[in-house]
């Protein structure tokens, strides 16, 4: 996967594990704002790990996508493999940009991968 010029340069990678059931992604906005302030960057690549197929998984992320007007967001889908998170982390780390994790809902497997790789993460709802 080659990243997009401009939009995925000087960015922050956020890996989001979307668990089953209803989740409220609008709370993610606060996390993005905090990360933006911390790193002085306004572009995010959001890597989504979800059991829902594309593009139906976007229903869970509609809240954040509609709430955001300030940041550049690039959404990439990676299917439903907690182990696949390792590959995403590898790719993201190679780009030299900061990597952060978010778990939406009940998705312990992803949380465990984040912990094992030393990725800072938070669980939202």
């Amino acid at each position, binding site marked *: 996967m*080659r990243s*997009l*010029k401009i939009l995925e340069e000087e960015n922050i990678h956020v890996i989001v594990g979307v668990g089953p059931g209803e989740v409220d992604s609008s709370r993610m906005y606060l996390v993005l704002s905090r990360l933006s302030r911390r790193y002085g960057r306004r572009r995010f690549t959001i890597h989504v790990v979800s059991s829902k197929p594309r*593009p139906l998984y976007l229903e869970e992320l509609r809240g954040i996508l509609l709430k955001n*007007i300030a*940041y550049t967001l*690039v959404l990439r889908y990676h299917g439903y493999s907690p182990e696949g998170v390792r590959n995403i982390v590898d790719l993201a780390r190679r780009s030299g940009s900061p990597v952060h994790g978010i778990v939406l809902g009940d998705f312990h497997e992803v949380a465990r991968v984040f912990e094992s790789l030393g990725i800072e993460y938070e669980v939202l709802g």
Partner: protein
Amino acid sequence: MGVYEIVLSTDRTMMSNHHGKEFLGFLATGPAMGVPEKLWQWLTAPKVPVDELGRPREAPYGMRKVEAVLVDAGFKAAIIDPDHLDKHLDTMKVLMIGHHDFFAYGPPSSEWWSLTGKEPLNRVCFKRFMESPAVRKAKKKGVRIIAGGPAAWQWLWELELWHKWGVDTVIEGEVERIIVDVVEKALNGEPLPDYIYVGPGDSPSVEEIPVIKAGSVNGLVEIMRGCPRGCRFCSVTLRPLRFIPLEKIREEIRVNIRAGIKGAILHSEDVFLYGADGVKPRPEPLLKLHKMVVEEIGEKGDLAWSHASLSAIKYAEEEHRVVSRIMEEYVLNDHRRFIGVEVGIETLSPRLARIIMPGKSAPYPAETWPDVVEDAFRIMHENKIVPAATLILGLPWEKPDDVVYTAEMLDRLRPYRSIIVPMFFVPMGALKKKDWFLKDHIKPEHVEVLKKTLEHTLYWAEDIINKMYLKEPFLLPVRIGLKMFIKYVKWKTRRILPHVEAMIRK
């Protein structure tokens, strides 16, 4: 026969010049009313002339910008009329689709939908376009579909259709700086992101905004991007304010004239803020702009503004007499008997104005909003400017007193020639239930506002049609159609209103 690898297209309600009358295009945001759908479509969105490759003489301006960026980057790209996509099926690799209201969730489509309970024409036509044999064949042969434009967000509410139609990427925001790379990756078969939101920090500079290569619908040309009002909920205001230089505007008008389009629509969030000092209009840039435009379009060229704010109109006239100077010195003549513009009233309650749009009345205090509206309406009436104004009802912060106040204040606007369109705030999701949304939400005070705006609009619409609009002989059938439509609305209202009032009393 195909030539283009990258084809940009959209449905008929967008790919039309609306008989050269932009306002008629608004009727395509409603369902067919009182006439068969085919007749309604002809009335609101007739076909445009195309060349042998299916390239339309006029196409939506935003799509023209994307086309220009891609052509400048060396791609074989062109806008193709929806009826001629099959001519490029053998060469097409990327299909880019633009729209300002894909699924009719924007205003005023959603209001027509909520009022009538029927799917608006633009939604029906867009679905038909996506289901058309040409688009389906393109997808089947592996063409990648990229959708974008100001209504991109609506795809988030239509994920099933997104999936069914095989849309690869949806892009929202200003794309001049980034679209070449996205298209390159699409052509190379590389993975694409599902959704892209181009934030304000990645907006193009004035230099990065290209000049269009071919005609835009009714000669629309952009004079500025962004807005300095600073409303916190609005993405436009976060983007840098950019005034398009006169020479660039002139170039685009010339592109349109060469395409056979005899006129210009000056597009901006607020035309009177062109070259302004913050929210205070300045006479010099506005006069220079209009002088240049009429030099280019000539005595017989049509001229319109897309949007203006009422506060800027009041300030421009009261401080600098610039509205009347523009109209007297440049606009009005035997051919140009009036100018049309969209304006937003939204509410006439100062309390609600303070909450939902504190920046809209600037440089005047929000408390004076009703006076700002009335003064601007008077200025426009005196200068033969005909506003199509919007009002919003049913906002979450609205109280009955706000609506009663708005209804009372509407009487003060009665003497001024204008169209006032009430729009209902409709929560997303409500429309898809296929229920008549308003029946559970409309209140007696809303009915009063609806009645007053309808009376106002019908009265002035007849006046405008009789005295100013659609005077060209070849537009006689459209004029007759429009008059019949007004008669139909009057008849229908007389029938429906007692039922609505009885329902509300219950």
